[in-house]
């Protein structure tokens, strides 16, 4: 117990129950800091629940119960962290919690299922969970909202079993059990009438995958709103697809204009894109530092947060930019001091494939248990281009490019060049000797590359560790199963000993 990384045996806090025995002692300074952030999170949550509409929402929607675990979610995503990494994590995850509270408040205040304000509802444009939101950057009087995020996407990270009820509902409806649990869960929410009833219209999209596209077309029946599907090319790296993609964006904007009576405001769009570009610049700085011997913003501190600002906020919320600038400052200070992110760097790793949503804290476990430094993950390696801030015609192409490069489909669609070959390029760039290969067993997009990955990893001399998982359904591979794949490789192939032996095997099957 102390301020040094790995000074506490973290596995001992798991007792086979829903909760951990106690919180971590990180030394006086870091524990005090963590305590104050804990107070802040409870303040945010109490303020949220004090709103009568939010309280009604809590009693109306099953998925809301997952958010009771928000403080545990933060504990999981800061586990073992000290100093700058702890502060960076809190900057990111606290903002995510705040942002979620705002999103849900907006939903519940407009929700017709619980007597919300119809006028507020008319200002909401619904977006599909896995689509970029930049098309809404030019509608400052409308609010883009993703109704699937609170019930499914975030619920699954809050509680590992948080969405399996809805996956089961979808299977009972007749959808095969082999499809991805994310669109299945989303459809399950629709079947069970558990979406807030809001919105004036809906934009949906074929990102991320075929299952998501198909789930959307069935969900539309429940939303029962005027809708427009943005078709994003599968072979998006082919330049011949660009005109088509840009025209889809034009048509989507026209659809929103026609339904809402609002006019697309280019000034607002470019202002937001300026924010978005600022965020991209910060992100690129993080990446550059991660290529050095002293990476600072890594693993969890990139993955979920990148999803939030790149895709969901999309430049419309400059709080994210300010946050990132502060993170940059912490990062550079830590870099100058050669701050270590783990007690001993054993391996530099790239995380590839789609991460397990029910174990989004897995990269932290890699750090704490085995000294594997998760430098960057596939879902975060999306577009780092700087987009136009003044040319409307170019902007259509920019938006189309961003839609094609949405987090979850950027590398799972588009061919071997972006899905496989880029991995080896990144390994070289980041001097990684290991790839943690998430294998989402029910994802039909990347599993088709399985053999090619294996063959080519050997050629490149990279340690490739397959980690199968079920994305949002831990019944397919538990968190423990995921860890065991790494444990097995580390023991039998690399003959290494864990940095924290208590983390090698512990019982968190019932944990949030």
């Amino acid at each position, binding site marked *: 117990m102390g301020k040094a990384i790995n000074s506490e045996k973290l596995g001992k806090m798991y007792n086979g129950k829903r909760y951990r025995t106690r919180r971590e002692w990180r030394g006086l300074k870091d524990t005090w800091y963590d305590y104050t952030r804990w107070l802040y999170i409870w303040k945010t949550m109490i303020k949220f629940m004090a709103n009568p509409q939010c309280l009604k929402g809590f009693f109306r929607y099953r998925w809301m119960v997952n958010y009771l675990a928000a403080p545990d979610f933060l504990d999981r995503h800061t586990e073992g962290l000290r100093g700058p990494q702890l502060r960076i994590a809190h900057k990111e995850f606290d903002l995510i919690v705040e942002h979620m509270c705002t999103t849900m408040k907006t939903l519940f205040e407009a929700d017709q299922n619980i007597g919300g304000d119809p006028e507020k509802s008319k200002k909401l444009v619904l977006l599909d969970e896995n689509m970029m939101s930049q098309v809404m950057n030019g509608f400052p009087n409308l609010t883009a909202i993703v109704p699937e995020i609170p019930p499914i996407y975030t619920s699954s990270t809050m509680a590992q079993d948080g969405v399996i009820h809805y996956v089961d509902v979808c299977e009972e409806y007749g959808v095969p059990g082999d499809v991805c649990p994310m669109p299945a869960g989303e459809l399950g929410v629709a079947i069970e009438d558990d979406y807030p009833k809001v919105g004036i219209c809906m934009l949906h999209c074929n990102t991320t995958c075929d*299952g998501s596209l198909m789930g959307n077309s069935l969900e539309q029946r429940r939303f029962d709103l005027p809708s427009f599907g943005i078709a994003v090319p599968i072979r998006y790296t082919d330049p011949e697809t660009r005109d088509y993609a840009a025209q889809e964006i034009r048509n989507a904007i026209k659809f929103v204009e026609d339904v809402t009576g609002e006019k697309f405001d280019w000034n607002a769009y470019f202002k937001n894109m300026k924010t978005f570009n600022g965020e991209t610049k910060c992100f690129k700085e993080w990446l550059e530092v991660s290529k050095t011997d002293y990476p600072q913003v890594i693993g969890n501190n990139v993955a979920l947060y990148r999803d939030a600002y790149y895709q969901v906020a999309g430049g419309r919320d400059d709080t994210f930019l300010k946050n990132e600038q502060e993170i940059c400052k912490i990062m550079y200070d830590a870099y100058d001091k050669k701050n270590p992110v783990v007690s001993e760097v054993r391996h530099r790793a790239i995380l590839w494939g789609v991460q397990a949503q029910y174990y989004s804290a897995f990269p932290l476990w890699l750090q704490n248990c085995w000294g594997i430094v998760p430098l960057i993950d596939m879902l975060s390696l999306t577009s780092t281009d700087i987009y136009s801030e003044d040319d409307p015609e170019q902007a259509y192409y920019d938006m189309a490019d961003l839609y094609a490069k949405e987090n979850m489909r950027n590398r799972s669609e588009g061919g071997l060049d972006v899905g496989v070959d880029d991995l080896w390029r990144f390994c070289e760039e980041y001097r990684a000797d290991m790839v943690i290969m998430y294998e989402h067993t029910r994802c039909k997009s990347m599993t088709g590359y399985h053999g090619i990955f294996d063959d080519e990893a050997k050629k490149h001399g990279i340690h490739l560790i397959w980690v199968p998982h079920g994305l949002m359904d831990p019944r397919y591979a538990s968190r423990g199963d995921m860890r065991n794949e790494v444990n097995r490789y580390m023991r039998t192939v690399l003959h290494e000993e864990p940095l924290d032996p208590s983390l090698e095997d512990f019982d968190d099957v019932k944990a949030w």
Partner: protein
Amino acid sequence: MKDLKHLYEFEKLLLESNNDLVRQAADRGDKIIGINCFQLPEAFYNLPGITAIHVRAPRTGTMEMGTYYMTSMTCEYCRAVVERALEGGYQFLDAILETAACSQVADCFENLERLQLCNKEGFFIAHIDAPMKSDENAVQHMIRMTRRRILDRLTEEFGTDTSEAALRKSVEIHNEVCRLISEIGAYRAEENPRITGYEFAVICLVTYACPKDLLLPMLRETAEELKTREPDDEKKKKYRARVLLVGSEIDDADYVKEIEEAGALVVADRYCYGSYPDRIPIELNDEEDVLTQICRHVVKNNQCPRYMDMEAVKYRKDVLDQLAKKYHADGIIVQQMKFCNFWGYERAGMQHIMREEYGYPVLSMDRPYVVTSSGQLRTRVQAFVESIEIKQLHQEGKGGDD
């Protein structure tokens, strides 16, 4: 019924991808191209010096190597194609044109490409991004992609004439095949059809597996033969219900045979590699260029679940309703190849929508790529047939007390 003269020959042609007619085409100097989807307009591939066949893997056995490369959680069609390619079964192809109809198909052909499994001199794989909606933007996209990635490529690689006149001629051949298939298929609407669903499935499927010009004489003869073919009097006893068969790709007519042996006559179809919409003739006008007309035909008639606009989603169900009415189907069987994302959802939706909103009895099933005699399939079809019969009895007021 008297056996159809060419049925055995057709069945034989389906047993191999590189069958006798394909070899004949290659011998006369044709370039043999593998294609995989309705969205790569078949009407192109009767251009001079070109023969196109759909990529299939008939007589697939085990798929260990395909499974190693693509895992056991992907569609068996894709795994079977990778397996066949690893075995060297597509070495006769000069090119493959692939549309990323779904992610798994895209991965499948990327495996072929990366592993260099087709080594004929000059072999190439062209990847075509197909649209996902039925609007005008989709038509324009289809025109761009097919012009640049198919027609121009054929000219560059093989010197193929893709002029307006050549395309018109190619469409004519395609249309003749389509008209013959439509004519043959129309007999299925008869009260006592003179052709079985299995026979029709074989005849239809063979048009995907052979050079069309070489197949046409046998098709013409079969159409002629059917004009005077007498149906079996006993048929009504043998088949207890008429069904519309819907769903993902079926490239083995034995699946239809299995259904029919369980008592359901397949009187209409709406599955990939079937007759609808692929065998609807393209009616050309003189006002617009041929390429545009072909692409518009493909986009507007598309029945693929990947078409995501709500008009297309609704249209797919309306088409089933129209087909069921036209062919007097008593029920609908929706099948999907296991692990197919598109049809997994579409099947679930159709099962409810066609039953609850259109009033049809619906049987929903998944299946493997390799058709084997399946007790489960038979039991399910038999139970379905019985449920249709009970429903009919109820409607006729003979339902008894229950």
